């Protein structure tokens, strides 16, 4: 080790031989710096790094969660939509069927009514006819009596003609009947 002898300025010093003091100072200084940096600096920076990583990862996680939620909402919405559509089509179908039934019912009812009316009409017509026949008979009888009396009242000169008249009359009556 070289000592500090600066009086001999001209003396050639070997730069590869260290000063003892510098070795000691170097070791102390480096150790001091090491202790300070390890104790006060590295943990603080590491803490900031961890916090930053967490903040970034937390942000990503939050975004992922939001996306998941949105997807779930979309699925739910789609489900609701399709179920609503199904419901609507079911209702429509039901309504159609119901409408058809009602229509069918109405038609049957109308037909029945028509049949009933027709039947009533027929019946009344028949009754009226019967009534007409009856009244006609009575009338014809009266007429016949009237006629007979007329004929009888008249001179029965032509026996044969008279009998023909009566016969024709009867015949006509028969025919008209």
């Amino acid at each position, binding site marked *: 080790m070289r000592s*500090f002898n*600066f009086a001999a*300025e*001209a003396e*050639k*010093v*070997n*730069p*590869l*031989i*260290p*000063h*003892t*003091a*510098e*070795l000691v*100072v*170097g*070791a102390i*200084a*480096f150790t*001091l*710096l*090491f202790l*300070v*940096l*390890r104790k*006060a*600096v*590295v943990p*603080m*920076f*590491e*803490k*900031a*790094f961890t*916090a*930053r990583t967490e*903040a970034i990862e937390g942000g990503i996680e939050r975004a992922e969660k939001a996306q998941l939620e949105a997807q779930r909402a979309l699925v739910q919405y789609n489900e609701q939509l399709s179920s609503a559509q199904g419901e609507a089509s079911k209702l429509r179908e039901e309504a159609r069927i119901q409408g058809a039934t009602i229509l069918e019912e109405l038609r049957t009812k109308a037909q029945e009514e028509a049949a009933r009316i027709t039947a009533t009409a027929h019946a009344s017509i028949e009754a009226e006819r019967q009534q007409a026949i009856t009244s006609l008979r009575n009338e014809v009888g009266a007429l016949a009596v009237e006629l007979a009396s007329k004929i009888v009242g008249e001179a029965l000169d032509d026996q044969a003609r008279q009998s023909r008249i009566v016969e024709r009359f009867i015949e006509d009556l028969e025919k008209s009947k």
Partner: protein
Amino acid sequence: MRALANLHAAGAGFVPPSTNDFNLPPISDSVAWLTKPVLLVFLSVIVVSTFFVLSSRKAAVVPSRLQFAGESVYAFVRNDLARDVIGHDFMRFVPYLFTLFTFVLTNNIFGIVPLLQFPAMSHVGFPYVLAIFSFLVFHYVGIRKQGLGKYLKEIAFMPGVPLPVYILLTPIELATFFIVRPLTLSLRLFANMFAGHLLLLVFIMGGDYMMHDSHLIMKLFSPFSFAFGIALTFFEFMVQCLQAYIFTLLTALYIAGALADEH
């Protein structure tokens, strides 16, 4: 050229800077060990710790300007040196590598900081200390990881080599691990800082000498010497950063090698 040579011969002559220019006298005669490089080393400790303590004190997720500056340096050592080189379990070595890098870098840069202008690492004692620390760290790590016997065996007898080759390989490997590595680590740093400072001295002192020379030609050429000195200062800055990086990188590599199961 001849005129210049004659001038040198005639006048008092230019005394080129030598190793003696690195041998600075103590600041006070009563304390022999307190020299400029010793003071600079202590100053570097104060500067580095103050800067990083201040920048990391209120370390937040969103960094302030100061925190960003400190953090960038820290992240560089942590991620680009420690993590990328050592890999798994690198955090154990981050404080050491971080101290190494900032300590060497600051002391190197002191070489071109006005008024300070002396790289402490050009005094071989400091690089020796750092190399010894790195030497102890990487051997300690290797021994802790693999056990003393296995660690030495792995170094001396590299597996997968034919037997006769060991005659050649074993001495080389042993020398590499125990002599060459610490020696090159310290001497590389020392020599770069020493030579760089010497180079600056040559051009600045040379320019000064020429400026004060009585001859006009010498005076005219003096600015070129100064200009070259300034250009070299920039170059020195690059070398200073590079040497701090290399010292730290090699230490990280040695640690990674000691941690690896097979090298």
